[in-house]
């Protein structure tokens, strides 16, 4: 029987190696798996590469991992936000590498990894600093940048409901990067505010089919 539901947050986060690449869903403070990020901190993995839209604010989520020197590299589109003090400090100290990626390119690279593509041409960033060193090509008069897929060892997702097959639905704009990250990591873990019976989710409305999921845990949602 397929049962992806686990009972403890430590079981949910499981073994994560030093040097692992971790995708973290979320945009701003919406859709971030704060419980799983706390569990990752407790679990102790170091030298992490974090793939996320932002790089954490205040003393929460990715910011806590940065504070505790667990992060070697950040791949994101918008690391600097009001309150991103730990990112800014580690960046100034040159303690972390930063790969800055336009947000649509970040999303598309993640999708490409999940969909088994070898890369794609995007018009975004053509003629800008962020295309420097990248292969470019003019096709039918439009300039494009060649971008490679972006996969991860682990993805940490936040959803609203999940079932034992791992099917997920999200709440409003907390959806953001979560469904695409679900497709692009070797191990995919979701925290949900409610586990529901198999069959309770409408198959027309499932956003992330369970095929992508490894583990699902019910948590009290955290908002910051």
């Amino acid at each position, binding site marked *: 029987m397929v049962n992806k539901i686990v009972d403890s947050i430590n079981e949910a986060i499981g073994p994560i190696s030093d040097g692992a690449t971790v995708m973290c869903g979320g945009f701003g403070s919406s859709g971030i798996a704060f419980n799983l990020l706390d569990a990752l901190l407790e679990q102790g993995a170091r030298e992490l590469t974090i793939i996320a839209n932002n790089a954490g604010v205040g003393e929460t989520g990715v910011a806590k991992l940065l504070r505790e020197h667990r992060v070697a590299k950040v791949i994101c589109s918008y690391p600097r936000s009001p309150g991103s003090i730990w990112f800014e400090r580690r960046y100034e100290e040159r303690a972390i590498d930063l790969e800055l990626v336009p947000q649509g390119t970040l999303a598309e690279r993640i999708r490409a990894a999940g*969909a*088994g593509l070898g890369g794609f041409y995007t018009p975004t960033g053509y003629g800008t600093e962020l295309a420097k060193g990248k292969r470019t090509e003019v096709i039918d008069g439009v300039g494009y940048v060649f971008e490679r897929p972006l996969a991860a060892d682990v993805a940490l997702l936040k959803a609203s409901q999940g079932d034992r*097959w791992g099917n997920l639905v999200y709440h409003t704009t907390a959806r953001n990067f979560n469904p695409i990250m679900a*497709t692009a990591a070797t191990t995919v873990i979701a925290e949900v505010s409610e586990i529901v019976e198999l069959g309770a*989710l409408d*198959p027309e409305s499932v956003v992330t*089919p*369970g*095929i992508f999921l490894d583990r699902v845990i019910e948590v009290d949602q955290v908002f910051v």
Partner: protein
Amino acid sequence: MIRFTPEQIAARCAQDIPDGAYVNLGIGMPTEVANHVPAGREVIYHSENGVLGFGTAPEPGTEDPDLINASKQYITMQPGGAFFHQADSFGMMRGGHIDISVLGAFQIAANGDLANWSTGSEIYPPAVGGAMDLAVGAKQLFVITRHTHKDGTPKLVERCSYPLTGASVVSRIYTDLAVIDITDNGFQVIEMHGENSLDEVQQLTGARLLPPA
């Protein structure tokens, strides 16, 4: 010689579908595999036209005319199923999310090349459908097929003469005579049905068979 019926081939293949597997069954004989998965195993079936977790055929009169599988047969849904569009469906395949794809074959080469979409006929219009995506994407590609063509010529060959569906894609072959893995050294017999001997099976095969361990 012992020759399995198509149903027996499908049943033998079904033994190797583990509990919890995500499986795509190709058109024709592969579809039969679902009817033989041992009781107690929960298998989640994918169809290229955008559905995961479908069930058996509907009772006559209860068909949903929109709800079909890749073979255009009416299906039902299991609790826990999901619908999605064609780009997401093929992303699942190419992205390596399907554990097992079961396909038929015209020819399989000793290096795992598969030919199953075109006989190269000039008269007959070609059709490929999802065959090439299925061949390239699944974690394991099982082929179920008769060991030879109807005229007795081998389907398992040194090199495919028919146009390829995919290069080096097949993991395991279930035929009416044997179960054979593709290895770095070529066709490796895993088991032979009944009392079939390696020599007998070898004579109906177009490339060298390595004996079972």
